[in-house]
């Protein structure tokens, strides 16, 4: 809290002794810190101003004694006025409030044109990036493998990824191991199982033997949720059906061409299949696991470390945008902002149905579910643990997995907590939470037991 103490207090020392200079020993400092924790200057501006003024005073009076003598003789108010005359404290404070000097302002962020990327995309037309001083170009990308390679190649500074991808990249599954981070989840829910119209009477998954399904990527929530759903209904996803990775844009075309029987895919593809009369929505992913994470905002650990201020500003923009998107009343406006060809490139009607949750199901009924897709930036570490159990369950990773360690390393819940506070949001108290998938509770502290409880498994 030393940063927030008053530099115009003549009794205070700015250097030597404990880290803040106010106490005789480090222990005393720590104790005072705990007591002081609640006494941080109330307004954000005041807080920043003190930090900046402190720095100026330190620069002007390298000798602490001289500063104190000066303050004693003229008084704090005069000193502040005097300094303000030749040093623009106000401007300096504003600069600091923007998160310190940005290492770079021009950034490139990659995205796949699906509604999961809504926060990343809308932050551009709706000005969330510029608000935090960044000039971000959002670049549409053709597929998950390409987005992975372009991020690894540093063509993108950060990117929209499926939430299991940073875990897989970090573990080196399907890519060369490289430490990756997922400091924010973009969306929760918002996927669905869509089947071809000709299967409209086969609503029982037990009758799906021999079906061909598409999922966007091997390392995706879609893959794990579909496998989970099938296995719960007694179908072995590896032998009873065929599951192939198909990029989202090709899903509807493949469904029309009868190449696949259905897909568990991201929106807008589900609604687009309905809109074009080629498929119907069997279940929303929300009905499998309400509140499941889907896509994430990911960056390499190297970027986080080499440009911490830029990274913080970028993450703040995303968190801000996500919070805006989570409000139901903003959804229509967002649908219009992200529909143009430069962004998602879909009819507004389709996007509106997805975002507002009032949608045609493809079988002649209008359904309403305001939480069909929702936005919540918080990367719960327990999400990562669940994903890791499923990776192991289906043989994507083998051997012993340090669930909690990997989860903590990749899903940066603590960073998000800090930044959520800074933009005025309330982060959750705990970085893990328990949830249930198809009625089965998951305890993040016992991943191995959870894994063993499945009948159909490759682990």
């Amino acid at each position: 809290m030393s940063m927030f103490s008053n530099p115009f207090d003549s009794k205070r020392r700015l250097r030597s002794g404990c880290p803040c200079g106010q106490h005789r020993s480090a222990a005393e400092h720590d104790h005072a810190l705990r007591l002081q924790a609640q006494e941080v200057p109330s307004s954000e501006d005041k807080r920043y101003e003190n930090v900046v003024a402190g720095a100026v005073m330190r620069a002007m009076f390298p000798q602490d004694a001289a500063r104190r003598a000066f303050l004693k003789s003229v008084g704090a108010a005069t000193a502040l006025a005097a300094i303000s005359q030749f040093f623009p404290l106000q401007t300096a404070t504003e600069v600091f409030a923007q998160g310190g000097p940005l290492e770079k302002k021009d950034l490139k962020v990659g995205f796949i044109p699906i509604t999961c990327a809504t926060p990343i995309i809308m932050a551009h037309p709706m000005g969330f990036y510029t608000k935090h001083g960044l000039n971000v170009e959002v670049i549409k990308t053709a597929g998950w493998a390409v987005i992975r390679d372009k991020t690894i190649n540093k063509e993108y500074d950060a990117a929209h990824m499926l939430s299991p991808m940073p875990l897989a990249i970090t573990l080196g599954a399907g890519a060369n191991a490289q430490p990756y981070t997922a400091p924010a989840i973009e969306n929760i829910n918002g996927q669905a199982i869509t089947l071809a119209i000709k299967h409209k009477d086969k609503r029982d998954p037990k009758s799906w033997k021999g079906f061909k399904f598409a999922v966007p990527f091997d390392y995706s929530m879609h893959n794990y949720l579909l496998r989970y759903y099938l296995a719960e209904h007694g179908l072995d996803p590896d032998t009873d059906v065929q599951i192939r990775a198909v990029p989202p844009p090709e899903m509807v075309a493949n469904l029309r061409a009868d190449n696949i029987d259905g897909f568990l895919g991201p929106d807008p593809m589900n609604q687009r299949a309905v809109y074009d009369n080629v498929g119907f929505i069997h279940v929303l992913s929300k009905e499998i696991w309400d509140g499941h994470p889907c896509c994430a905002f990911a960056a390499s650990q190297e970027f986080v470390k080499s440009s911490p201020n830029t990274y913080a500003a970028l993450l703040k923009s995303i968190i801000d945008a996500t919070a805006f998107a989570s409000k139901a009343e903003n959804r229509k406006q967002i649908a219009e902002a992200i529909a143009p060809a430069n962004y998602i490139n879909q009819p507004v009607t389709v996007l509106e149905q997805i975002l507002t949750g009032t949608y045609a199901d493809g079988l002649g009924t209008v359904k309403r579910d305001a939480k069909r897709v929702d936005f919540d930036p918080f990367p719960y570490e327990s999400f990562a643990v669940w994903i890791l159990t499923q990776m192991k369950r289906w043989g994507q990773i083998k051997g012993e997995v340090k669930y909690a360690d990997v989860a903590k390393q990749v899903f940066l819940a603590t960073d998000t907590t800090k930044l959520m506070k800074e933009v005025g949001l309330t982060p959750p108290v705990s970085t893990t939470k328990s949830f249930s998938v198809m009625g089965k509770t998951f305890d993040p502290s016992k991943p191995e037991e959870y894994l063993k409880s499945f009948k159909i498994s490759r682990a």
Partner: protein
Amino acid sequence: MRSLSLRAGIVSALILATFLIAWHIATSGTGAVQQMDPEYAKLMGQTATQGKSAMPGPLQVGATLWKHLTNPFYDNGPNDKGLGIQLAYSVGRVALGYLLAVIVAIPLGFLIGMSQLMSRALDPFIQVLKPISPLAWMPLALYTIKDSNYSAIFVIFICSVWPMLINTAFGVASVRKEWLNVARTLEVGAFKRAFTVILPAAAPTILTGMRISIGIAWLVIVAAEMLVGGTGIGYFVWNEWNNLSITNVINAILVIGIVGMILDQLLARAAKLVTYPE
């Protein structure tokens, strides 16, 4: 002769007209329309509500084509640029990759054509590398070059290098022996011989190779850009496919065909300049 080209033109026009009419008729019909309540209908596309064919008709395609042609250079941000800009990106990539290929293939072709030893030594490599689909290089290129734009250029390079290389080698090797012997009796140096005797003699074959190459390069760029995205006509096709906008995809197909034809004709003209009567 004149009447022949006139008649051919008429037949071409007739074929086009028949095709357009057939297309129009095939797509104008409306399918069965299910009964649905108005609230539901509002949420559905025209295929479902009006039984409209998912394939656009020629009129629709023409209208969008007109829109693209009248405004080819708009720029609505990194993911939405006019057809003209996209084409410029694609042509630029092809030009770069192709030029690199020319720089490598022609000297190397000369070497192979002039030296029996090099010809034998390099043959196995060429035979193995030649049949590889250029797009199969893409993941490797992305991984090693670490830049998607250069990777696309590399793919163009690798696909256009082979026809030029082989044709150059063949052209150089099959220069008439008498001409070479004349050069030798006149004691012309190796370099001078290459430029004044062999190059003019082999030029028609070399240009045939270059013409084949440019065709292949143009075929490949579309696929490469669909894969890596970003900019270019291939990206445009992918982006519109993503939106299931068949109208725009057909437009792009038309434009790709026309640009390909122009590139081919340019090299055909160049080939005419260097042909000689024997």
